[in-house]
């Protein structure tokens, strides 16, 4: 695989989709729809591939654009929390995790703030 290729498979379900793109210093994964129990495994895969690719390509940031993600249940939230706590345990500093959020969505305001608090400098909320 060349360095330019991004090994993050898209998700295109009826009520949830995900697509990742590489930008010069970061990888941006855009999540849309509703992340409920049915998409938990797909979300787990995307986050896992995002982590692998961010590490392989040595980008500065892994961005989760959740502006069009209207709902995330606690199981899916657990996937994100595990990602963050996993990165917090890493001895080597790698990439930051940035959330591009929508202030009008209540779950984001409530959960992402707690996530930023949990992650400290590792997590940035826009």
């Amino acid at each position, binding site marked *: 695989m060349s360095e330019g290729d991004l090994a993050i498979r898209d998700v295109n379900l009826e*009520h949830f989709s995900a697509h990742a793109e590489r930008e010069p210093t970061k990888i941006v994964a855009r999540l849309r729809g*509703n992340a*409920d*129990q049915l998409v938990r495994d797909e979300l787990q895969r995307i986050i896992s591939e995002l982590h692998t690719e961010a590490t392989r390509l040595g980008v500065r940031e892994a961005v989760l654009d959740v502006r069009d993600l209207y*709902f995330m*249940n*606690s*199981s899916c*939230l*657990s996937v994100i*929390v*595990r990602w*963050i*706590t996993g990165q*917090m345990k890493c001895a080597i500093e790698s990439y930051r995790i940035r959330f591009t959020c929508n202030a009008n969505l*209540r*779950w984001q305001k*409530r959960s992402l*703030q*707690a*996530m930023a*608090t*949990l992650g*400290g400098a590792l997590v940035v909320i826009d």
Partner: protein
Amino acid sequence: MGRTSIAHRLRLAFLVMSVLTLAVGALCISRMHELNQATAKIAGHHLAKVRLAQTGVRKVHENGRSALHLFLIRDPRTFDEELAEQGATSREISEIYAQFEHLLDADDERALFGAITAARARYRSTRAEAEEVLRTGDRQRALTKFEHEVLPALDEYIDDWDVLLELEGRRANEAAVNAATSYARARAVTLALTGIALVLGMGVAFFVTRLITRPILAISDAATRLQSGDLAARADVSSNDELGTLAAAFNSMSEAVAFRHERLAREMNLAQHIQTALLPRTFCVAGLDVTAAMNPATEVGGDYYDVLPVHDGCWIGIGDVAGHGLNAGLIMLMIQSSVAALVREDPDRTPRALVTTVNKVIFENLHERLVLDEHATMTLLRFHDDGFVAFAGAHEEVLVCRAETGRCEAIDTPGTWIGAIDDIAAMTSDSSLRLAQDDVMILFTDGVTEARNAEGVPFGIERLFGAIEGARGLAVETIRDRVLDAIAAWAPQPDDDVSLVVARYTGPVV
């Protein structure tokens, strides 16, 4: 049914089809070969006769011409040569006769050939007489005899040949017609045999296909029924082949699924029982009318609430373990036990201190003992009977419906979740609010605001405000029930537990 494998059945079907095809093919080839031989024989036989007859007629004509020439020449030397030539022609004709006679196989042919032989004899006799006269030197009388006796005999002779030729031509035509009839019959037989082979082949193919597909459909049907929840679904296949083995394996699997499903259901019931049994049943807090309820979802959730009275008020806890199932129920049980034990030990510690200690306990249990990577939202509130409420820990907002305005306020619960990292002291702080008399405080889990209707629209915070504000003056139990009814009307089958704590501050305790 005996031990006949599908592969064996297919091989057998293929063999039957092959044998049928080969039999039809061989029969057709044999029939065509016979037809070909018969046609060739008949055609060759008749053609030989016609050819001989034509040669005979030609020789007779030559002989006739030669005879005429004999009567016209005057040179004795030439006469002898012509006579010799005529004799040679007569011998050839005799050989043709012999050959022709050998080929005769019908009475009418023999009769006609007899007539020709007789005509030939007459012709030869008259010609010999005329030749005798010519040898005497009386040319004129010889010519007269030739004209009046030899030529009519020759005409009769040739006419008889023509009749035979016509007969042979007719026979050849009849042979051609017979060959065409035989070909048509052979073609009809071939078509009929092909049709029979086709029908038999289709029948065999249908029978074999049905033998294979019927059990597959039975297994598929049983699988569909099992998928739709019919745990008694079994595949009714008794054959002793691969499909029978598959059906037996499916039936064993169904039994195992039913057994595990039953066991899981029992465990779930137990877990749900534990979850609800641990919830407080009575609420007796000085200065606070408090009630609560939890409507569990189908699957065991991880909702937590508790009300722990202390000397000057109470501790109220609310939280939600991420995910569902036994693990979530178990973690909720650990949170409840830890909070209850720590409150008993020191009811006057700060909410922040309590939250961070509970986090340590839960984190250690999860990561070092259970090896689970889970987390939970949790806010602990310390209510004092003067209306002061201190709280810490991240969960949903605390709602307060003010008696003065009749409107709800949503108060953030800053901080982070418990169980995710070992120490959250740095990110946890105490916050506070003050309740005025008759203010109603509502705590809830995300199952309330995220209960989604058929279109996927969540119940949301605004509808929750509306339900609370609409019932604010009523008893706390009525407020609770009105809110729960509104949620149930919005989402009859919620995916998550719905938990609600409703507390009205009744004023300072004197």
